[in-house]
């Protein structure tokens, strides 16, 4: 019985994983095949990788785009985690009626489609002189209701007795946050980091509107450029897409142990 259940569990996971991995496999195949073969549905890796690579590098500045994407995604992720977790912590640990109310209001901020607020935001940024600048790129997404709420929800399981003990030991509130909360909430931070990095890496519409300079092109923009020609070379496109996908996948792979393995014996 137990053996059967174990078997069923693995079978289930293998099936789910198969469906999840299939697109990646598809991309790898596509990136190594000629365009015509890709659209006729060839599902075996080919020998056209080098040619696709050459064509990609000849038409797009991938190195610059990679550097830009990494720079923006890393800066954004770090700032975003600090500011949003401070806020989430503040909302939960010191919660009262007023703060709960403010939290609910803040949630409203994510409920309007960005298309509606983009133009007023653009006006503000143009007046502030932030067009074509890194600050213009990252500022709107540093603090998000989503991350704040995520930290607020997980701060709920932050044990109060530890805090009381720390306060009695004379630790200041900010030091409790940095020395106790952050290490305890490692899994939340790791999960938040994965998600924020992914969102920052993939962000497109706002960067595209605010950055008009070729020097600030990011990976998603490179991918978009490749789809816009009169002839789409699907082999080259999928190679670029592969480059665009791998960083997020790698970040996930590296961080997953931090958020999914638990913190045995630490603070708790």
């Amino acid at each position: 019985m137990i053996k059967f259940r174990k078997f069923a569990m693995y079978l289930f996971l293998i099936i789910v994983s198969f469906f999840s991995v299939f697109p990646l496999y598809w991309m790898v195949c596509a990136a190594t095949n000629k365009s015509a073969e890709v659209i006729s549905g060839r599902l075996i890796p080919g020998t056209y990788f080098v040619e696709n690579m050459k064509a990609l590098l000849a038409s797009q500045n991938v190195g610059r785009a990679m550097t830009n994407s990494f720079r923006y995604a890393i800066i954004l992720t770090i700032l975003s985690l600090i500011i949003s977790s401070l806020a989430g912590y503040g909302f939960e640990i010191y919660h009262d009626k007023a703060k709960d109310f403010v939290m609910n209001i803040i949630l409203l901020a994510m409920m309007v489609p960005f298309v509606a607020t983009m133009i007023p935001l653009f006006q503000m940024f143009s007046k502030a002189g932030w067009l074509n600048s890194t600050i213009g790129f990252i500022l709107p997404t540093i603090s998000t209701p989503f991350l704040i709420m995520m930290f607020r929800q997980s701060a709920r399981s932050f044990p109060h007795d530890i805090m009381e003990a720390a306060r009695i030991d004379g630790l200041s509130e900010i030091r409790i946050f940095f020395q106790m909360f952050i290490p305890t909430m490692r899994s939340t931070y790791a999960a938040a980091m994965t998600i924020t990095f992914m969102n920052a890496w993939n962000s497109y519409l706002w960067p595209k509107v605010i950055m008009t300079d070729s020097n600030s092109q990011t990976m998603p923009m490179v991918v978009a450029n490749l789809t816009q020609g009169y002839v789409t070379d699907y082999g080259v496109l999928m190679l670029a897409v592969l480059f665009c996908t791998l960083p997020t996948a790698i970040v996930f792979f590296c961080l997953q142990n931090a958020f999914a393995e638990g913190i045995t014996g630490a603070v708790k």
Partner: protein
Amino acid sequence: MKRKILAALLASTMVLSLAGCGSGSSDSSTAAPAEDGAAAAEEEAAPAEDTGDAAAEETAASGDQTLTVWCWDPAFNMNAMYEAEKVYQQDHPDFALNVVETPWEDVQTKVTTAAASGDLSTLPDILLMQDNAFQKNVISYPDAFLDLTSSGVDFSQFAAGKTAYSVVDGKNYGVPFDNGAVIGCYRTDVLEQAGLTVDDFTDITWDQYIENGKKVLDATGKPLISMQAGECDLIMMMLQSAGSSLFNEDGTANIVNNDTLKVVMETYKALKDSGVLVEVNSWDEYVGSFVSGDVAGTINGCWIMASIQTAEDQAGNWAITNMPSLVGVDGATNYSNNGGSSWAVTANCQNTELAYDFLASTFAGSAELYDNILSSGALATWAPAGDSDAYGVGNDFFGGDAVSAKIVDFSTKVPSNITGVYYYEARDAVATAITNYINGSDIATELQTAEDTVNFNMGQ
């Protein structure tokens, strides 16, 4: 939240389906060198980019000889700009272009955002605009674009049907660039199996087309044509081939009482019901259907040749001719247009004289330029270019036929029609109507709904 941010990827999303609305064509025998040329040109332009575009834009105001341009295809319109730069530099050695690769969807988003927020400073000096979007953009944001009527560009040297797209209130807002003349493309080897040649498809009507198509279907099991379901490219091409439009001169919708449209829809349904036309789900699948040889041909703007020529194994087995004409419609012809684009000068251009002179002496004045870019598939709509010898050279992919000269000839015969400010609204409404009509709904009801939808959109 998650999707909100990912929604930001939107432009990269629509492009696949919209790639078809663009225009351009390519000559595969020379496409590869052309691409190298584009790459080389991009490298050449790199120093200019390194100075920083923001800086470049501002210095342009102070008499600097640099223009910023937005366009989107490295092998095609970007290449054309780099070639134009070279041509212009012969007389103006200080001149430089800063070409920023910007997909059309993004050009539209950025223009709308900048114009709606009243800060045009992010716009380039010159941008490439889809012909179908000209009326809409100029009417919505008249302050964002410059009137080129008296800019020194001789518009009379362009095909009238082509300039009509970018004329608003009698003023010219665009310098025409590429050709979107409709061509019928056929696999001669497949037709042969049904005992047909491409001549059986030249100067024919849609009735004859269906008849021939059935022969091909019987002999080979292959449909003649595939079309993307829910997109009404073919509908619009048929409509224009008889000079008909979805709008009247006064801007009101012309759908319910448009008898030509009714014939078009019936023809489309007949095509589909006979099995001669097969509907596919997406643009990729559409391209795939002829690249992998599942269908025996296609009908589209001449820029589709570039996609056809990616099927290298079919070289020599393709032929090009005009499209079928509608039956029982006044003014029916075998010629139409789909896609195409023109250069617009934005109000952010500080050195307008330079921009005007550049356009007038390149895209509207240099046969040399058009000869140079012909290899990348950019077919001129500028009449003097068509007389060039380069246009008479045969293309082996299409059985040695001089396709360039042929297409230029087609383009002069295209009836002009009214794009309309509400072009995209009407197009979507008609696409809905045709989908429902094919699925068995009544044609009159559907046309009424379509007209109501368009009127609703206009009544704001």
